């Protein structure tokens, strides 16, 4: 395509029309993949070509402008190239401005980070356009800070907006930020609040990162906001957006020679250093071998594998443990007790049953005294052990404490976690031989005395049979799964019903239906799990009925985490309760739920 400068107005308009029509009909890829590289090359140093390009895009009719601009933004290899190609299109053309500043940023969110970089970089590269950049930043921040947006927009969109904010911040310089500092600050405070209130950890983290970055930019010399969150690839990628790397000019022809030279220069130096390393290495072994020849080495060491650190002994009795945990000042003993507690509880079920509620109380209130590794996990495992050893009284205690005054949210959620873990343990058959209930091994065999002898005779008889019979073919061997009674069935009701009882009664420090909707969400999920684990138990129908009523009361809750929990509750109900019971006893509730779900979707 070779144009002669001068008198080319009409031709350009025609080309613009063709371009626009082609783009709008979905042929962006084909046209622009040829056009843009050409234009990139041509406009690199030639002003006339730049103006031709600008005229080209300006003349595209409004109705096709969006498609063309979108295509350009997506395909341009960098912000500077985009700037060369589009010129001040956004300033001159209203439609283009709308597309670039509103549509691409606020209404769509499927574009890649590279596209965002292009777009915002393009806005920052010219004085006229920078005013737009500031406006864009303010609008993005308003959206970011609006609580309804945080609650109702999908996480992908929120991430997109956060990325856009970070890139904008990276492009703005000091005076520009100073001019709108106050609004940025207000928006940041509001936005942080909305984000931290959310139940989804991803949203919380996004809010934290953006707020930190904003505070870094606007308070560069004063104290900055610092949040604690786990660093991973995502956060690092987000934070890297704050730093602008200079655009690389990939010019293919020239530096090949340079690069080759540099490579050649690099090689000999590498060889040299290798040589030095080699000459250094042989010197070492000589010295060492001299030392080796001493006669000291005919003393053969003994086995020292038993040489370990000396540990303080943990108490062996449960009541001793209680004493140590309640009042002892000896930190070593306290640590040893914490570590040993779970296994002690499991080994002495009878002793634990005597003091179970007391132990549960102590563990619930136990705070970390010294820096024990995995303290939270150790405490939780001990609590689960206590609960599984003596389910009914301890469950009663824990569920009553869930609704009591003066517990922290963390403690209440701990209670829920413990109930779930214990329920899981109780409902799985005990497949190991450690705690063998007398005689309840296999309900079909007779009660045999002594555990080991029973296995032995079986083995002897099997071997005798094997040696005396001739087998023609052995069928498929199937492993007999270990079976045991489901211990959760007798206590499921005790776990479940007290938790549902008081959810609508607010206390001074704990309001499930109000501020503490995070705990409500966790409660709902816990109920769903308990319902699921209660499959095949006797109480399951009553539980199902109560749960469906509970779900019905909460079905319009504003928090999405709670609503997710409600849906999983319904799934558990449908999975656990046998079909006959569902249809017989709970027809009205089922119909109501069905209509609700149908209307919802």
């Amino acid at each position, binding site marked *: 395509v070779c144009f002669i400068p001068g008198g080319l107005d009409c031709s350009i308009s025609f080309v613009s029309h063709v371009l626009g029509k082609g783009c709008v009909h979905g042929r962006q890829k084909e046209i622009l993949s040829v056009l843009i590289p050409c234009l990139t090359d041509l406009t690199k140093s030639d002003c006339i070509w730049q103006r031709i390009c600008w005229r080209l895009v300006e003349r595209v009719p409004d109705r096709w402008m969006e498609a063309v601009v979108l295509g350009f933004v997506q395909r341009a290899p960098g912000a500077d190239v985009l700037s060369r190609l589009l010129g001040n299109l956004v300033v001159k053309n209203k439609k283009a401005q709308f597309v670039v500043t509103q549509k691409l940023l606020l209404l769509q969110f499927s574009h890649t980070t590279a596209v965002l970089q292009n777009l915002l970089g393009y806005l920052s590269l010219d004085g006229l356009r920078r005013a737009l950049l500031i406006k864009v930043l303010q609008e993005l921040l308003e959206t970011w800070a609006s609580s309804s947006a945080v609650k109702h927009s999908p996480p992908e969109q929120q991430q997109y907006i956060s990325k856009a904010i970070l890139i904008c911040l990276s492009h703005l310089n000091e005076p520009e930020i100073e001019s709108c500092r106050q609004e940025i600050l207000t928006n940041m405070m509001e936005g942080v609040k909305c984000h931290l209130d959310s139940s989804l950890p991803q949203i919380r983290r996004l809010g934290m990162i953006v707020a930190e970055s904003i505070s870094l930019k606007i308070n560069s010399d004063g104290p900055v906001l610092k949040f604690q969150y786990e660093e991973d690839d995502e956060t690092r990628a987000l934070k890297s957006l704050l730093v602008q790397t200079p655009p690389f000019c990939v010019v293919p022809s020239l530096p090949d020679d340079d690069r080759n030279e540099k490579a050649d220069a690099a090689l000999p130096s590498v060889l040299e250093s290798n040589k030095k390393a080699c000459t250094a290495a042989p010197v070492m072994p000589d010295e060492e071998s001299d030392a080796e020849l001493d006669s000291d080495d005919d003393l053969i060491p*003994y086995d*020292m594998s038993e040489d370990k650190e000396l540990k303080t002994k943990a108490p062996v009795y449960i009541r001793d443990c209680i004493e140590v945990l309640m009042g002892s000042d000896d930190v070593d003993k306290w640590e040893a007790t914490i570590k040993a507690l779970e296994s002690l509880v499991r080994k002495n079920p009878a002793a634990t049953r005597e003091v179970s509620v007391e132990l549960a109380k102590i563990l619930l209130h136990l705070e970390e005294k010294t820096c024990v590794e995995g303290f939270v996990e150790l405490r939780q495992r001990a609590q689960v052990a206590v609960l599984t050893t003596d389910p009914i009284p301890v469950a009663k205690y824990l569920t009553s404490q869930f609704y009591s005054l003066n517990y922290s949210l963390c403690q209440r959620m701990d209670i829920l976690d413990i109930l779930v873990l214990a329920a899981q343990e109780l409902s799985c058959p005990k497949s190991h031989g450690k705690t063998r209930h007398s005689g309840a091994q296999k309900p079909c065999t007779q009660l045999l005395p002594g555990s080991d002898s029973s296995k032995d005779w079986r083995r002897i008889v099997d071997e005798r049979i094997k040696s005396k019979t001739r087998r023609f073919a052995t069928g498929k061997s199937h492993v007999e799964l270990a079976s045991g009674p489901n211990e959760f069935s007798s206590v499921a009701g005790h776990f479940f019903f007290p938790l549902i009882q008081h959810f609508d009664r607010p206390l001074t420090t704990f309001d499930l239906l109000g501020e503490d909707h995070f705990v409500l969400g966790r409660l709902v999920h816990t109920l769903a799990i308990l319902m699921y684990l209660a499959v095949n138990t006797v109480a399951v129908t009553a539980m199902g009925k109560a749960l469906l009523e509970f779900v019905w009361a909460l079905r319009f809750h504003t928090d999405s985490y709670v609503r997710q929990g409600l849906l999983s509750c319904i799934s558990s109900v449908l999975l656990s309760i046998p079909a006959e019971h569902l249809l017989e006893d709970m027809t009205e509730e089922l119909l109501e739920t069905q209509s609700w779900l149908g209307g919802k979707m």
Partner: protein
Amino acid sequence: MALPPPDPEFVLRGTSAAIHTLHFSCGGQEPDVPVLFSGSENGFIHVWNLKTHRVDTALDGHGRKSVYCVETMGGKDRLLSQGRDQRICLWDLAEGRTSVTDSVFTENVGFCRCSLLKVAQGRWLMAMAAKALEEVQVLELPSKTSVCTLKPEVGAKLGMPMCLKLWQLHCGSQPLLLAGYEDGSVVLWNLSTAKALSQLVCHQEPVMSLDFDSEKAKGISGSSEKVLSIWSLNEQQNLQVCKTHKLVNAGIADITIRPDKKILATGGWDHRIRIFGWKKMKPLAVLDYHTASVHCVSFSDHKNPTERLLAAGSKDHRISIWSIYTQT
């Protein structure tokens, strides 16, 4: 496949108190019986017959106050003992006697064991912690005349002397003293000038025990932390740290190097005795017999190498006797 550590040859029981110090005297000719002296917390010094494994004599000379140092002065008939009654007693044990011939009143209430060095026939130097907090006094025995008093300079803040070792390069050369102090430093003193030749901070905690090999000019010290420090003396009489060895459990009560300078033994607060090769501090064995802190370790001075023994006295009232690495 390394062998499991050996068991004790035999165990001496009967002191009914924690043992704080041990000393062998086995160099005598037949029909002299090899003997082990032990000092206990109840103030008794027991003389153990190593053939019958029984107590031959029990000496009571410190008013039931703990005896924390026992040394022989040329043979098993002359004994020196130091106790918490602030006295150092000299005993005459020849021909079945058990009498205190002389005593030195040290006026020191600490736990620092005295150190003996034979400088000439019938003449010994003894270094002991003196009355004043940071001072070490050197006496000549048996005349009990003071040779010098070693005072650290003002503001040195060394604390109490914790362990002492008198040594000389060979008979006739100048005797020197190595002292380990409460602040973790080891100081080399010149006795004739009463001046410190070199000071080396080798530990963060008090130096509990030290021993020195005058042939290699290398020494080792242990403290209440998890590290053993090995240091050496160069030509300019300066101490410098050669290396440190990290232990599994903290706390060393006693260190001793075998007279043939091949191995050394440490007794620890974690109830274990550790054997190392002296040349390169190679860990050789961990002897785990005692049920309470080991307070003292001592090698025997048998003329026949295969009969050599190691004794360890502990807070659990037992003395364990080991025969280890006797082939070299």
